């Protein structure tokens, strides 16, 4: 028996107390939905976890009305420091229930427990802590003195980081004084509903956060609801485009965080062992279900063979299997539909002439699985180098000079993230300066911090989440009030005072 056949080390699900069915979370309570309920399954076993209510137009209307009431009567009148107290409380509860949330996330999403435990859930707590600190300091958020909240925010999140995306959306919205109606993804609603329990535990005033589960129709009802002041969406570029069209001509604000096809550029002087780790982390983290994944490896031609050899050797040590096992590196693909897309695009890659290599790992018979895969001999015109696969599939391309690397990296409709690997600091700065991507990692990849803004260029969306910039999407300057209240003759000082008084009412 081999030492590397580690004995199973599964995280116990005994810590979870799940109900057999979950309603919608509206006005501080779980209520029945009026759409057709659906099941959420574990992608690793295809077993049903729970039945989830679906929100129809009337349910969404109720949720938006609850959010509006909470905004008018409670949340917009509360001081920033009091809002901060609630956010701190939520952050602490997330930490207290961290293990439970991690198990639920891995069960529902299919991601390895080591990621949900060591990355997702700690970041969720960090996000709430970070924005809790901002709640009473909004004067310094960059929107001028005494900025105002927008009102009710409709938020739609994807299935790849269900709880983390929830935190990215809810924490800044609440800190800025907005109330929220959030729709989790259809395949991963579980942790959002556990989060609703945390909100009850934290005694958050009713209606400040409402969670409506459902499919595309629920999301569409939320986007088109006239009572919503702001839409924040993370997901595919296609849906994002639809949302932009739907709200055109309304005064709704919008933040879109969409797809990506990030270049991970490895120069010949890169710290090679760490670059290999970074490439692996860039594309195989969360089974490649990452919008900012480093799915296009641009490697300097002189070290191409060595990098590919080392990469294959490293991929052969990855452990694919039970997401709840603490030694699992690669979990399950989130859904049958996503698996189908990955398979289709990979087959196209092969038929277009690229060379396919997959790590030799045994795929479980139940559930949705795809082995870590590399395509070499990929050209910029191949679809696997253009389309977002959103799976554990890496396309390897080469370049000869920094100028060519930059040109190839930018030659994509997307522009969410990029990576640069080099031992030479001046080259990193020079190349980063010319890359058209919202996030650029140097000698690392897929690192996130609540203080750092995140968002895309071009078809990767607009607006920024995280950091001080993330608050801008949920605030309007006090000046927008002034234009209504101040008389043209009043000088600036007077109008500022008027504005403050108006806002205080």
């Amino acid at each position, binding site marked *: *028996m*081999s*030492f*590397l*056949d*580690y*004995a*199973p*080390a599964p995280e116990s699900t005994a810590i979870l107390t799940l109900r057999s069915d979950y309603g919608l979370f509206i006005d501080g309570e779980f209520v029945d939905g009026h759409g057709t309920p659906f099941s959420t399954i574990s992608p690793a076993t295809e077993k049903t976890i729970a039945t989830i209510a679906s929100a129809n137009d009337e349910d969404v209307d109720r949720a938006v009305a609850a959010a509006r009431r909470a905004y008018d009567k409670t949340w917009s009148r509360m001081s920033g420091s009091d809002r901060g107290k609630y956010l701190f409380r939520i952050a602490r509860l997330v930490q207290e229930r961290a293990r439970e949330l991690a198990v639920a996330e891995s069960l529902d999403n299919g991601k390895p427990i*080591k990621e949900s435990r*060591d990355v997702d859930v700690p970041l969720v707590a960090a996000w709430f802590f970070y924005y809790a600190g901002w709640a009473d300091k909004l004067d310094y958020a960059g929107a001028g003195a005494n900025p105002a909240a927008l009102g009710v925010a409709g938020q739609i999140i994807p299935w790849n980081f269900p709880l983390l995306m929830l935190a990215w959306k809810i924490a800044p919205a609440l800190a800025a004084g907005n109330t929220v109606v959030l729709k989790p993804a259809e395949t991963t609603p579980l942790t959002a509903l556990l989060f609703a329990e945390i909100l009850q535990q934290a005694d958050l005033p009713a209606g400040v956060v409402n969670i409506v589960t459902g499919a595309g129709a629920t999301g569409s009802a939320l986007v088109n609801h006239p009572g919503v002041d702001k839409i924040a969406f993370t997901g595919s570029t296609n849906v994002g485009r639809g949302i932009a069209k739907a709200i055109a001509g309304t005064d709704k604000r919008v933040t879109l965080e969409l797809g990506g096809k990030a270049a991970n550029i490895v120069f010949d*002087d*890169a*710290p*090679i*062992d*760490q*670059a290999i*780790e*970074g490439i692996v982390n860039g594309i195989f983290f969360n089974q490649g279900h990452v919008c900012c994944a480093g799915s296009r490896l641009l490697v300097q031609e002189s070290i191409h063979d060595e990098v590919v050899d080392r990469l294959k050797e490293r991929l052969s*040590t990855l452990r694919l299997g039970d997401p709840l096992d*603490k*030694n699992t590196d690669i979990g399950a693909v989130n859904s049958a539909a996503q698996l189908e897309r990955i398979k289709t695009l990979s087959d196209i890659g092969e038929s277009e002439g690229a060379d396919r290599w997959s790590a030799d790992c045994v795929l479980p018979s139940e559930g949705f699985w795809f082995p870590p895969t590399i395509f070499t001999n990929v050209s910029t015109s191949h679809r696997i180098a253009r389309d977002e696969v959103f799976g554990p599939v890496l396309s390897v391309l080469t370049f000869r000079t920094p100028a060519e690397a930059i040109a190839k990296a930018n030659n994509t409709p997307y522009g969410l993230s990029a990576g640069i690997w080099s*031992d030479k600091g001046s080259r990193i700065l020079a190349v980063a300066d010319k890359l058209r991507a919202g996030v650029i990692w140097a*000698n*690392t990849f897929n690192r996130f911090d609540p203080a750092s803004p995140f968002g895309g260029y071009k078809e990767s969306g607009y607006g920024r989440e995280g950091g001080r910039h993330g608050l801008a999407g949920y605030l309007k300057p006090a000046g927008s009030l002034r234009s209504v209240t101040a008389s043209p003759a009043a000088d600036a000082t007077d109008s500022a005072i008027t504005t403050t008084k108006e806002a205080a009412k």
Partner: protein
Amino acid sequence: MTETQKVLVPRPTALEFFDGPVTDASLRRYLEGIPGVDAVGLEQRAAGLGTRSIKTTSKKRALDTIISLIDLTTLEGADTPGKVRSLVAKAITPDASDQSTPRVAAVCVYGDMVPYAVEALGVHHARGTDSGIQVAAVATAFPSGRASLAVKLSDTADAVDAGADEIDMVIDRGAFLSGRYGQVFDEIVAVKEACRRSDGSYAHLKVILETGELNTYDNIRRASWLAIVAGGDFIKTSTGKVAPAATLPVTLLMLEVVRDWHRLTGEKIGVKPAGGIRTSKDAIKYLVTVAETVGEDWLQPDLFRFGASSLLNDVLLQRQKMTTGHYSGADYVTID
């Protein structure tokens, strides 16, 4: 400047990596041309390997493997023949209450204690074979290495003559840090030669880099290459007299060098983290790092060792716990 022109003689397999004869200058070009190490990434990878969860049957096997890889060590000014005999007895019978416990790989002592170790081991002494317990001696003015080459060589030869199977030498960190790579190289080559026994066989040579004094990962990587090219059989992190001693990132880095050397030449070089590894939990992280970096072929005494003294008792306590189902205490294992 004739010194820099001097031709150095590396291990035969290393010759093809040098364009022409090996000199101080070509050695410098070679070592400084090795790709750099990103400290953040290295430490992240080591931390990741440290999260592997080794349970039940895997843990049981890991504990036995750890014992069989230990260089049970006493390196104190106060060492006496009595202390060494006691250490040897512990090496032969690690756990008096469980005869199925494997024996350690070696005992590691100062050179003047070698005769007592050899005598105490008796029939259990390996004597140049793979079976039995090896006697390792620290030499070359351990731990500082601050002595003339002649003294270092006679220190080594004395220990080999007295029956040492393995020599743990220290490199001249002063020479390394001032860029005199050729001098460090020369000393390793000379010490290797001093390891030759009268019958033509060699005592195994472990080269201690004293990573805590080299300070940067780039230095540690260069020193690892240097020690291997010069002919070391093992590269060892530390003397145990300088903090920090062995760490997981440093050991990972050295294992990566060993893996690359194996890829280039097919030769297998050993790695020995020493100092600071006190618990089974830590030691298991090292096993995981070895197996997932160079492969589990390296989990054998010829290719991996722990330089430790207090680690053994923690492993024995864990082993007893796995057998009996309950924790005992410090008084249920012998102090040495």
